[in-house]
């Protein structure tokens, strides 16, 4: 949607390649201000376990999706929402793009997962950031429509005034004590 902004030079990290956070020694005061991919990883995924445990429980409590073996609860392995994820960050341009992979092709929770991701980032990053949330290409049956909805800030604003989606998002984002 806003491909023009994507910095072709920005480094793209996949989750598996997480590096150890560099020691603060080599960081000058300017660098402290910088937000990099790793920080976004941290924001989104350090508590990813609790994030998706919450999501999983909510899914199970409120809704059961049309999956083949309903007795088998969602496991993190099955919730491969983020394994293929790509995060693109350009701090200079104040730009973040998160691409996620819905659990199954027809996952009807895609818009809610995307909404959770957006809210999490919105609440964690400085307001100067422009954020795009996208479904990984080819992973969702209605990819374009989901992307359009997730990036319409008016729809997002309206959803977050609506108690039910808001509760769902808040529950997903709450720290889990499991």
């Amino acid at each position, binding site marked *: *949607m806003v491909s*023009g*902004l994507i910095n072709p030079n920005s480094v793209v990290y996949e989750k598996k390649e997480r590096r150890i956070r560099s020691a603060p020694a080599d960081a000058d005061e300017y660098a402290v201000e910088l937000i990099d991919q790793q920080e976004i990883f941290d924001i989104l995924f350090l508590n990813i376990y609790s994030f998706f445990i919450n999501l999983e429980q909510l899914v199970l409590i409120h809704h059961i999706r049309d999956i083949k073996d309903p007795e088998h609860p969602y496991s993190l392995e099955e919730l491969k929402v983020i394994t293929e994820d790509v995060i693109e960050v350009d701090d200079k341009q104040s730009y973040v793009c998160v691409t996620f992979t819905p659990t199954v092709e027809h996952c009807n929770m895609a818009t809610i997962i995307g909404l959770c991701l957006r809210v999490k980032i919105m609440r964690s990053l400085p*307001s100067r950031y422009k954020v795009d949330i996208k479904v990984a290409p080819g992973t969702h049956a209605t990819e374009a429509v989901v992307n359009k909805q997730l990036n*319409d800030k*008016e729809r997002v604003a309206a959803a977050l005034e609506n108690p039910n989606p808001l509760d769902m998002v808040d529950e997903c984002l709450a720290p889990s004590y499991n």
Partner: protein
Amino acid sequence: MDLLEGRFELKEIQTLEGHTDRVWSLAWNPATGSAGIPPMFASCSGDKTVRIWQHSGLQSWDCKAVLEETHTRTVRSCVWSPSGKLLATASFDATTAIWEQIGGDFECVSTLEGHENEVKSVSWSASGSLLATCGRDKSVWVWEVQPGNEFDCVSVLQGHTQDVKMVQWHPSIDMLFSCSYDNTIKVWAEDGDGDDWQCVQTLGESNNGHTSTVWALSFSPSGDKMVTCSDDLTLKIWGTDAQRMHSGDGYAPWTHICTLSGYHDRTIFSVHWSREGIIASGAADDAIRFFVEDKESSIAVMDAVMVTIVMVSEVDGPSYKLLLKKEKAHDMDVNSVQWSSLENKRLLASASDDGTIKIWELVSVP
């Protein structure tokens, strides 16, 4: 003066703080700013309030009133009746409120219900006798103003297939325009026997239209052109046969004149055409841009900025050039830009996600 000749600068007059959430929209009161009445405008916000701002005479703008405790959710848009006496506000709470200034206070004199959920835009017809609303339920409603602040629904129009983002009446004839998340602009008119309203034209992709959500539209001063802005990062100029439109001799269709692409980096939320002919746009890239018709050349090559002006309809048709780009006009998305109708000053107000409203003056630099 010829706008193309001069050099311009956007001078910030004042930043207005007060809203505690993003400011979605603002509207100048058309009955103010002349005959000794100080200019006034209204703004509305995600903080569920509407604020009324007035020029105090000392180069400063003050918040004169806060209209609260009526809407229970975001107030998405606000607009004054042509007489300036009534203010209509559309809210995510599914209602449209009508406010009247009684004495020094603004009172909510009517509430229009009927939309299923979020109302996103409201517009008064040129005469002030009709009101249109639109919203998330994909419908456009036409209301007739009755005596005693009563509003009768005269039509519920369901042509859009998605969320309707904005409704706008034509500045001189009773024809209604709506733009939508379904990427189209629709034109609505009363049917032959005056019994109901119907869609008379849809401007979509097949008409060189937009390829993503159309967020807003605005008419040229004479009403024979219209500019639309979109999530597809373009502005589009449309035109119609003004003579035919006013003669009432059948419907004068709108056609695509040109597309201004390559200027904006993120979604364009707002566009407004000044009386003088300057198009202002506000976008999610925090910038405000100004465009004017380039009467001299039909193939425009701009300095400094990478620009492509796509000429589609006719070789000698008008083209538009970027007059000025104000980077970082706000700290966040610019949601609304509105020219005041002041005669002697090019005054513009902008509203942003950063919670502020800014008053700007477009001044020529010697």
